[in-house]
């Protein structure tokens, strides 16, 4: 089935390639950079704040601004993740692991270059999928019931446990701590309130972004402060020659494709988003095996996987939105309002009746990706200079940034308190050699696993066998077994 004709793409390109539209895309991309990079602010917040500004303008300007924010916002969080171990948004947490490692090795330039290019390739890949196959793929979203979501959640958890370095036991304990944090608040199945310790603030659950800031940024800040490491202990930053990048990407082209596919498909699934996509892609990156070839090769694989996957979510999440009216992630949920105000009810009729507008969305996304590429590569030389700042100045600044970020989310002081408490807990755990990633992934995936396990059982009369008889679920469970065996064998070897 022909989704969209070449002539309508050409028409849309002419309509979009106008100075004022390009201007608004650029503004959107710039806002996306700020909202993506600032901890506590996300692409979702950026799009939500910008939406009322679009009430009085036409479809093209509205989409130029909002999709610009969307496209750049999912990438920009990788910059602070790489430089100061503070993911700007939850979707960039996986990037922090290897990006920050490279930055400490004096290769922040390489890390940022990789993140930019992998993001843009992932994003463009997902736009192409959206263009070619949106109606076909929307039925994929409807194949996923609680059973499949449970198996997918478990698969994600096992993937991360398998790649997180160090002791397997400590990784598992970390994941358990994260899953416990995920049980706090209103239970999505029974409606009862758990572990809120009579603090009303906790009834909404453990907020993800403050937790992320605590376990990544604050814990690392305290570790460094305790180590009293001077700037001379860090190797000086090397300039990465961009001409080498195509060769490097070509070497990992299969990984790039695999992670982009993963990101796009996770994006299509409602209720997921860049965080889950990047962790699963990271888990499947084969970086553990690549450790043999050196730390740098492994880190390169980790960054490529995480960043191409999280930006591939953009095109993927638009698939159910534009074909069913059901958002694939949180940003597309906000976009519904922006489309309604334009008089467009996104749903099964959208592509059929508004093929021209659909084509325009594709072109805007493409231009936004290219702008992200240029701006991102432009910034890569300046930003690593941050690392030359002595820790006695840089660390307090990061501390202020963490508090400001924690407060910026909802202006709730309690959430800043959470950062302090969990930050100290994270530091203590890190001192005992616990990896931070499994804790965060436990918090993200724990509720998905629990709620869907219970819902899946309730809707199938408590019959456990459905998890093995439904094909997608069975395939995911088989993948879990293979990953576990492979991981245990590698650890023995």
């Amino acid at each position, binding site marked *: 089935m022909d989704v969209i004709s070449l002539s309508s793409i050409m028409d849309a390109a002419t309509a979009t390639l106008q100075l004022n539209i390009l201007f608004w895309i650029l503004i959107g991309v710039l806002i996306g950079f700020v909202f993506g990079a600032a901890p506590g602010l996300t692409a*979702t917040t950026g799009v939500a704040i910008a939406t009322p500004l679009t009430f009085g303008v036409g479809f093209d300007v509205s989409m130029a601004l909002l999709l610009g924010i969307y496209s750049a916002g999912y990438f920009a969080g990788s910059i602070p993740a790489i430089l100061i171990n503070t993911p700007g948004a939850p979707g960039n947490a996986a990037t922090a692991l290897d990006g920050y490692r490279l930055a400490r090795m004096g290769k922040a330039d390489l890390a940022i270059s990789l993140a930019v290019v992998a993001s843009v390739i992932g994003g463009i890949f997902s736009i192409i999928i959206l263009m070619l196959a949106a109606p076909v793929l929307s039925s994929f979203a409807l194949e*996923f019931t609680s059973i499949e979501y449970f198996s997918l959640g478990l698969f994600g958890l096992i993937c991360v446990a398998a790649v997180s370095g160090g002791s397997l036991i400590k990784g598992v304990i970390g994941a358990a701590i994260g899953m416990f944090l995920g049980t706090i608040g209103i239970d999505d199945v*029974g*409606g009862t309130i758990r572990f809120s310790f009579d603090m*009303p603030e906790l009834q909404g*659950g453990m907020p993800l972004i403050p937790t992320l800031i605590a376990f990544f940024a604050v814990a690392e800040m305290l570790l460094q402060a305790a180590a009293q490491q001077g700037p001379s202990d860090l190797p000086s930053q090397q300039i990465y020659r961009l001409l080498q990048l195509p060769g490097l990407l070509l070497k990992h082209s299969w990984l790039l494709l695999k992670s982009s596919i993963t990101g796009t498909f996770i994006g299509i699934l409602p209720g997921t988003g860049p965080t889950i996509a990047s962790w699963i892609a990271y888990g499947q990156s084969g970086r553990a095996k690549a450790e043999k070839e050196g730390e740098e090769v492994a880190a390169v694989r980790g960054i490529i996987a995480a960043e191409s996957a999280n930006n591939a979510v953009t095109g993927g999440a638009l698939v159910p939105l534009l074909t069913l009216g059901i958002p694939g992630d949180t940003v597309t949920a*906000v976009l*519904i309002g922006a489309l309604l105000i334009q008089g467009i009810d996104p749903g*099964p009729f959208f592509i059929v009746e508004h093929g021209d507008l659909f084509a325009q969305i594709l072109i805007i996304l493409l231009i936004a990706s290219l702008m992200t590429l240029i701006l991102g590569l432009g910034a890569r030389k300046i930003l690593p200079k941050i690392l030359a700042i002595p820790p006695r100045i840089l660390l307090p600044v990061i501390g202020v940034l963490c508090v400001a970020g924690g407060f910026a989310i909802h202006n*709730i002081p309690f959430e800043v308190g959470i950062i302090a408490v969990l930050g100290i807990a994270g530091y203590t755990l890190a001192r005992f050699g616990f990896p931070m990633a499994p804790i965060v992934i436990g918090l993200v995936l724990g509720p998905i696993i629990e709620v869907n396990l219970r819902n899946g059982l309730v809707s199938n009369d408590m019959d456990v066998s459905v998890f093995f008889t439904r094909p997608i679920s069975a395939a995911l469970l088989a993948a879990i077994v293979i990953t576990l065996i492979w991981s245990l064998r590698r650890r023995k070897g």
Partner: protein
Amino acid sequence: MTFFPRVMRAIALGTCMIAGVSAQASAAGYPEKPVQIIVPFGAGDALDGTARVIADRLKSALGVPFIVKNIPGAGGGKGTAEANKASHDGYTLLMGSTGALTARPLIKDPGYKTDDFVPIAQLVEAPIGLAVAADSPYKSVKDIVEAAKKSPGSVKYATPGPGSTQHINMEIFAKDEGIKLTHIGGRGGKGAVVKAMSGEVDFVFVGASNYTSLAKAGKLRVLGVAAKDRLPFLPDVPTFKEQGYDFNVAVWFGLLTNKGAPDEVVEKLRKVVAEIANTDKTRELYKKFNLNEAFLDGPDFQKEIDANVAKHGEVLKEIGLIK
């Protein structure tokens, strides 16, 4: 040792005096600075849409920015609790909705009580409808009731979540009809729709705006709307009443402020919001969001809130959410 408490007391006294002065000053010339509207659900939600429509119109009418702030979580409880903590001067408004205001506080203390807010006006209702997947064997509400009678608990349905207005009311319906249904939360309205389309549940009971375009495309079949009249955007769908069931569910959205806000401020807001709500411009914006205009002034809105609290208390006990 006595120094510290004394300083604290002085600071506290000073703060109170400044606050008192500013509260007096603000009552006369309200609003003198930006006003925040707290929406206890995420951006993009129908409640959020209503707030943004009203914020846009209030800004034009009163000349200061009305800033919408989304604080989602705990079924609306988290944002409502934050609104309750704000200073009681009329510079914080709450976009209240049925569940967060009249059900959550009955289940467990969420940081506010049902009577912590003064109503300014009820604005709209989001009509709720019952829909099934296109290939479902059920053709009417009666089919579902009979299937549930034949085999209690075998018919499953989805709502945005446990304890939501949709969930509570469907349980009221089940009780009235003497049937037993199995509930599954969809983690949001759209999530509940997906559960019906993927075949995980037999029907979905959420705001009709969640699936209007799906229904028009024939991907979902709406069997009944729980409203007094048929909906303008789903004119072929009969009401529950037409099918012999006296069942009306309204999820209402309205504007409130903290109890203790100066009377003049409350009166001024009531007057301005009533004027705004009664314009074509506002109606046009509501229509775009598939919202039903349902204006009630402050005192009538209070009666509606009280009636909901009484009704929800009974049902929540029966379905085990109040012990």
